[in-house]
């Protein structure tokens, strides 16, 4: 019991993920600043932002539903924490988790978006409702190609549905990225990840130049801090999930750890560069993009995987 609590709260759960999330979001801001030819924020900037938000007044709008409004950020945070715990435990000892944890992870990764939707609708602000409805459309749009892309490795590994089995299959044979179907699924998954993280070009739900901050507009103080923390943790957890699914995860022995971290950094660089070189899409363009080219590409990947390519 104490061990489980340690896993969830300290390593690899909440504290570890939160600290790495703060660091990663700083890297994101710093690299963005360098791309724009400026200096950028100091290392502790995300921590300052977080502590400041904790110290501010929390306002619940009069028209809002108080309980839902305040609880939804907590659920999102809890979901990301559980995903991170599962992923790292699987990498440390592949035998430890249960059958079907891949499906649980996919479900849990959808929960933060759903919490944003619920929180946005609960705040009783028209712009927040608009943002929440856009977020809902985004979830409907990107989940289909994302799940298709995630199941390509499962088909390649003869239907292994446990993360640990998938990892061991990759360690025994070669990584899934090393095949045509894996490559196609990986590209689709990266673009879906960008939408999952709600970063440019898919930051349509919160588009600060048109609907201010979307679902977050009425949030202040502690709930806003939790939302920000959830976003930063997602920036760490979702690429980590792709590293496990397609690139063989992190092997905990000697130099392999560094190699594993490099895999994550590669994905992070791709995310940041995509974010800095693209304009924002409209919501209809995004849905057409995901249900059209992306889904077709993902289906091609699945067919290739069935053919064994």
């Amino acid at each position, binding site marked *: 019991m104490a061990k489980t609590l340690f896993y969830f709260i300290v390593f690899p759960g909440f504290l570890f993920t939160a600290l790495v999330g703060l660091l990663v979001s700083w890297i994101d*801001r710093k690299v963005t*600043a360098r791309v*724009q*030819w*400026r*200096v*950028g*924020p*100091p290392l*502790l*900037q995300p921590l*300052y*932002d977080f*502590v*400041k938000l904790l*110290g*501010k*007044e*929390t*306002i619940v709008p009069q028209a809002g539903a108080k309980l839902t409004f305040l609880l939804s950020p907590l659920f999102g945070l809890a979901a990301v924490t559980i995903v991170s715990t599962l992923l790292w435990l699987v990498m440390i000892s592949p035998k430890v988790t249960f059958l079907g944890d891949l499906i649980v992870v996919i479900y849990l990764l959808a929960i933060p978006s759903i919490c944003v939707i619920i929180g946005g609708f609960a705040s009783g602000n028209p712009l927040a409702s608009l943002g929440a409805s856009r977020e809902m459309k985004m979830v409907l749009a990107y989940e289909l190609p994302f799940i298709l892309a995630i199941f390509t490795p499962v088909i390649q590994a003869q239907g292994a549905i446990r993360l640990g089995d998938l990892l061991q299959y990759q360690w025994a044979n070669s990584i899934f990225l090393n095949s045509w179907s894996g490559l196609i699924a990986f590209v689709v998954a990266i673009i879906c990840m960008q939408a999952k993280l709600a970063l440019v070009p898919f930051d349509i739900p919160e588009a*600060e*130049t048109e609907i*201010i*901050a979307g679902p*977050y*507009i*009425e*949030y*202040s*103080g502690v709930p*806003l801090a939790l939302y920000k923390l959830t976003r930063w943790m997602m920036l760490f957890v979702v690429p980590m999930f792709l590293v496990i699914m397609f690139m063989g995860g992190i092997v905990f022995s000697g130099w392999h750890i560094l190699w594993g971290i490099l895999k994550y950094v590669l994905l992070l660089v791709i995310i940041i560069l995509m974010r800095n070189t693209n304009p924002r899409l409209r919501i209809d363009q995004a849905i057409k993009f995901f249900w059209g080219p992306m889904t077709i590409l993902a289906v091609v990947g699945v067919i290739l995987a069935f053919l064994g390519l």
Partner: protein
Amino acid sequence: MDIKTKALTKSLWVFHFASAPCNNCDIEILDALTPRFDLERFGILLVGSIRHADVMLVTGAVSPKGAVRLKRLYEQASKPCLVVAVGACACSMTMFRDSYNVAGPVDKIVPVHAYIPGCPPKPEAMIMGVVKLIKALKKG
């Protein structure tokens, strides 16, 4: 100085309220936020929602209609929220002093923590104003 104040001084999120200005001050504010001056070095970000803001920049001589909104926005902000009057009009109304359709300088409507005079103030002046504001915060 406690940790709350330190975090606040290191991460000031700015909300921009334009109450009937001539837009010169607004353009200078946007100048100050460009990569050339790079205010993100000090944790200063522009936010769109007053609920997220720590600093409210007010420009222009406040009109009677604007005064109602300004007061309401200040009440909607999550405290501590600092108000900075940017430009000569917001500080003292200068040439609009005796006009029939102004409600007064900003400090007659909401409490003001820093004044940045100038018509319009340069981005450097604004940065200096913010630095002085941070110093005042640190003193408590």
